[in-house]
């Protein structure tokens, strides 16, 4: 990550039982304005390693005075979310990347249907002011678990009125994806941010209804899942690295002092692609095509791992 800078945490709010919202202000000057749907990568130096997690910006895109992110405490105690929830205090400084966008709205759409699962609401929060400004036609469908992840329901319902559809899995009927997607006119685009299951449900329903895949856009907020430890060889230098169970390949490589271009750190943007010269791959990204996968000579090290005990990268 070349373009990083320091910010100060100026406010922390608990917005739901498992979600905290952080306000980040520039140490000096102003922050860079961003486009709707952008995220930043936050560095979290813990004792065992430096986590780098991507978080959507949910503040006003044109307001350079501060950024806001929301962090959900992940169920498995692994990862940066614990650090953000337990270590970071108001007044602390954090290193963040410049905003990048891999989930921008399609402005040629006639109507936007946003489907958010829990904390997946965050990228859409920066869509809304843009939609309002441009007079876009949209609906927001917000699925969450009562009290835990439904952080923004009240303020959204004030803002959006009947454009907002809330589904609290604890109290209200489940969202019927098929009803939600049928009876739509050409030019209606769907955006999903949430867990894999929700994305799959929408994709499957689209297929059943005959809706072209180009109408479906999604962002998965998958953090790299742990796996087996393995040995990683870097061909050019002959260096051997150990990738532990809790660590991604990208993290292990970075720890050794080598920089690899990356953006999403979630297997979707394609930035971090590396050539593999030996070893079997456990592909976990959503970027590579089937063909590339089966060729066995490229890997996305931010999420994917070795299927065996050793992997050799051509870097």
């Amino acid at each position, binding site marked *: 990550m070349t373009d990083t800078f320091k910010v100060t945490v100026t406010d922390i709010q608990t917005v739901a039982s498992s979600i905290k919202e952080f306000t980040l202000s520039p140490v000096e000057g102003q922050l860079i304005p961003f486009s709707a749907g952008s995220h930043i990568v936050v560095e979290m130096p813990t004792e065992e390693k430096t986590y780098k997690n991507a978080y959507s910006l949910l503040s006003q895109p044109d307001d350079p005075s501060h950024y806001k992110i929301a962090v959900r405490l992940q169920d498995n105690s692994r990862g940066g979310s614990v650090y953000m929830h337990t270590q970071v205090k108001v007044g602390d400084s954090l290193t963040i990347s410049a905003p990048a966008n891999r989930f921008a709205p399609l402005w040629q*759409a*006639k109507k936007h249907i946003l489907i958010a699962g829990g904390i997946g609401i965050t990228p859409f929060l920066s869509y809304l002011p843009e939609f309002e400004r441009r007079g876009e036609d949209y609906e927001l469908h917000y699925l969450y678990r009562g009290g835990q992840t439904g952080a923004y329901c009240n303020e959204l319902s004030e803002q959006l009125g009947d454009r907002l559809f809330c589904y609290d899995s604890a109290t209200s009927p489940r969202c019927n994806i098929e009803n939600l997607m049928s009876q*739509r*006119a*050409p*030019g209606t685009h769907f955006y999903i941010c949430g867990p894999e299951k929700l994305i799959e449900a929408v994709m499957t329903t689209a297929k059943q209804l*005959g809706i072209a895949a180009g*109408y479906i856009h999604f962002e998965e907020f998958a953090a790299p899942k742990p796996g087996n430890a393995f040995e990683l060889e870097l061909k050019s230098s002959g260096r051997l690295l150990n990738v532990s169970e809790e660590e991604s390949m990208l993290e292990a490589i970075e720890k050794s002092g080598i920089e690899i271009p990356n953006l999403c750190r979630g297997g979707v943007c394609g930035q971090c692609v590396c050539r593999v010269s030996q070893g079997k791959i456990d592909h976990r990204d959503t970027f590579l095509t089937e063909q590339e996968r089966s060729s066995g000579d490229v890997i996305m090290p931010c999420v994917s791992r070795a299927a065996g005990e050793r992997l050799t990268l051509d870097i």
Partner: protein
Amino acid sequence: MQDESIKSVSSRPVYPPVEININAAYHLFITEPSASSKVGNLLQQTAAKTHQLIESDNIEELKLQLTELIGTLPLATSVYLAGRETYMWQVYAVLAELGFIKEQIEMLTPTDNSRTVFCCHCYTQTHQVAAAPFECEGCGLPLTVTDHFSKRLGSYFGFQVNAEAKDELPAAEAF
């Protein structure tokens, strides 16, 4: 030199065989009147499904007609186009404007080899060009035709042939 480098950039569309999208909820055929027989086979396959055939070569009228129709069409509509290459791309542009995405639009093999050429000197489009070089309808310059295709304009990019040696015109060759 420049001639070569521009000519070598090919964005000529290819037209693989078209099949009915069996998942679609509605099948819309739009053809030039002279090309409607081209979709006969496909139409037959959709006989039992909701479908419609529009024959029109007036793009402006077609635009009005489609704008009205679109409110009644499902999102899962597949469109099939037949006619000359320019015609299909003009209809494509109208559909895109209305919100259709490219996955929904299928084009049959163009009915002839003629090209519409966009003159890079005077910005005029000359239709039904069968061979090049030809004389631009706008500025009268002899134009050579590249394989550089603009989907938005439905035309190929053309520029003056042999600008340095104006009297040496190569013989016209059919596309």
